[in-house]
């Protein structure tokens, strides 16, 4: 009971802290509506600097950058928004439009259909959402298992058993969901090219041959790191090395 009270108080304090951020967010939105994109960007960035985030915040920041024609920055913001809320249609749409302004056209290798189904199912909830599902289903499993033992009537036992099995399946799905979402949310393996033009090298060496050229706004996956060189992989599977000051991690 004491523990529970402590947790509630923790929630309340965090809510009061975010009160100021909330006001800032609304103010920034107002600036955006008035077309003062530079000021809006400044305000959104400040909220971020204060340690707050939300898919909407990143999405709005991305919009403001887009309006300022800073495409790579808007792509980074949209990608960050999408990481928090992968199934949001607006984020997806605006990211797609921003990507049209990227010079390089990279065709991603499409994933297998059941993998994309599974991903979109998992993406329905954030890691926190799946955490709640896990806790609820754990409780269900526990209670129904106990009831199964407790009850003498076969009929009730059977019902309890079914509930226990179902909630146990949910528990397992929730564990997978939490893992997948957390690894995605904490993923620091993705980056967006910030330099206007950069040539990707075949080895982590200035003198090595140029493999191909990338322009600002391209999303890459980071595979490896040697000193200041990063091994990157494009969505179409191309691999090469880039210097670290040419991109920004999402």
């Amino acid at each position: 009971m004491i523990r529970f009270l402590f947790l509630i108080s923790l929630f309340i304090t965090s809510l009061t802290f975010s009160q100021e951020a909330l006001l800032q967010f609304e103010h920034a939105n107002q600036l955006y509506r008035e077309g003062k994109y530079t000021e809006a960007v400044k305000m959104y960035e400040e909220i971020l600097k204060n340690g707050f985030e939300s898919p909407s915040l990143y999405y709005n920041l991305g919009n403001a950058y887009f309006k300022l024609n800073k495409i790579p920055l808007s792509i980074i913001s949209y990608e960050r928004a999408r990481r928090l809320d992968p199934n949001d249609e607006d984020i997806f749409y605006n990211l797609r439009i921003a990507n049209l302004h990227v010079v390089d056209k990279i065709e991603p290798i499409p994933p297998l259909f059941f993998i994309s189904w599974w991903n979109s199912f998992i993406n329905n909830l954030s890691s926190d959402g799946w955490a709640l599902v896990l806790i609820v289903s754990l409780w269900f499993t526990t209670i129904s298992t106990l009831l199964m033992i407790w009850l003498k009537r076969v009929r009730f036992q059977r019902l309890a058993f079914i509930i226990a099995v179902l909630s146990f399946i949910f528990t397992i799905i929730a564990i997978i969901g939490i893992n997948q979402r957390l690894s995605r949310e904490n993923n620091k393996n993705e980056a967006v090219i910030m330099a206007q033009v950069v040539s990707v090298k075949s080895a982590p060496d200035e003198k090595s041959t140029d493999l191909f050229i990338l322009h600002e706004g391209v999303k890459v996956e980071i595979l490896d790191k040697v000193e200041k060189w990063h091994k990157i992989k494009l969505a179409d599977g191309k691999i090469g090395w880039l210097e670290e000051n040419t991109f920004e991690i999402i």
Partner: protein
Amino acid sequence: MVIFSMRNIFTLVCFTFCLILFSAGADAQDVTFTASVDKNIIAMGEQIEVTFTLSGSKGGSNFRAPSFDDFVVLSGPNQMNSMQFINGAMSVSTSYSYVIQPRSEGKFTIGPASIRVDGKQLNTQPITIEVRKGSSQQQRSQRSEEQNDLSRQIGENIFLRVVVDKSRVYQGEQVTASYKLYWRIALASNPSINKIPALSGFWNEEIDMPKQGGVSREIIDGKQYNVATLKKYALFPQRTGTLTIDPMELDCIVQVQTRRRSNDIFDQFFNDPFFGNTTNVNHKVRNQPVNINVLPLPLDDQPTDFSGAVGSFSVESWLDKHQVKANEPVVLKVKITGKGNVRLIEAPKIVTSPDIERYDPKIYDNITTQGDQVAGSRTFEYLMIPRYPGEQKIPSFSFSYFDLSRKKYNIYKSPDFVIQVEKSDGIKQTYATGISKEDVKLLGEDIRFIKSETASLKRSTDKFAGSVLFFVMAVLPLITFAGLFVALRKREKFYGNITLVKNRRARKIASRRLLEARKFLQSKNKEEFYAEISRALYGYLGDKLNIPRSDLTIENVCSTLLSQGVSQDTIDKLSKVLESCEFARFAPSENSHQMELIYSESAELISTLENIL
């Protein structure tokens, strides 16, 4: 004999008389046109003088010589007019003479020549000439006398030489070759070039000569010659090994003194050169070929970008602008200045990123040949169009050449060029190719409007999943489960877990007994069958209802079942089966059909009760 001589005398007198008559009376009609040769059997290489003589007339017009197809005309037509007085009569003749030389052996015919005199056309008879391989002693001596005469006069007195400034050069190094004509006899006209040297194996550049080439004097072997440089070439060997500078051939018309083999006083008199009794002879002059030894360039330290430039050069490279907007052209200029095979310099290879559209370089040459040395500059202009904004780099390129003075390769390395490309003024920059139709439609679309949803705004560190709170909450049900499970177990023990265990095992035991009973049913062991059935039912009910074995009676069971909510119908069925079991055990006659019925009924009863209890 006498008669004979008398007749002869008569004939002679008559003839003379007639001749006098004719020549006096009809000199106008006595016009002849004849062709003659000095010999008609000659050896190859000998010369023949063909003379067409028109006598008896002051001169004809429209003289047409035959075509000397099988001969080479060395000289002619040489026109000569003569007047002769014989016995007081004057004879006039005009002769046209040619010096010809046969081209090959065999019999040839010199066709008729024609001339018009007083409206009449006169033709000569054709003459047959036989050309033999060898020559008769007489002809030879005659010819060689003449030839000797010519060669003595021409011989060493005119020759052509090619003078090179060096005979051992590197591949690509310049050699200057001058074709010089030496002569110390009279030339009738300026020599004309018959055959221009091919100069294969060389890249050649003709060096301009002053228009009025000065004739200088040189003394060779104690003889003074006039010297004129006819042509001068700057040669750049393209191959290694021994290369030959081909001879040049000149046609010179030299004046030689002709000599008559007659003892005519007039001839002797006119033979004097003072009177210009000379003939123009066409004389071919060709020089001896000269070999040039071309050394290969050293291979061991040859730079990879070397493309054959030899000499001494300096390189400059620059961009016309360093800051442009996208899609505007930039020109990179590379100027190579120096001495050597400037015209053979290839454009340095320049590598740019695919973002820069690059065109083949335009080449501008400014080359002079001052002081026999080819020098000048070659400028390459690379037009480039950066397509996308950003810092575009043109990586350093190199140009290498073989420095002759140091006998080493020199490498020029350009600096890296950086072009700052700004966004173009155009509203839309160019997009990458491969954009789909659908995407093109989207290009015109605006982004969707911002969201004002605030519920999800929270501290990025406030993540529930993975937090302590989350783990506590996740572990809590497990703890609860464990705690309650243990508590339940304890309670079970307190009440006596035997009941519980019995209850749970009742069904199993009953079905095992029923299985036994079935075996007895098949073996028709009636007594054992009924005993087993009643044991199964009593055992099951005792375990389920928790009634001690001593209290197990039909009445007792029925009243307990009724209190547990079992329907009266089921209870009736049960008591009936139990009763019939008791009864049948001791009854002697019973058919197997009855046994079957009892078995299925009791199995049914157990499963019905299992669902209720």
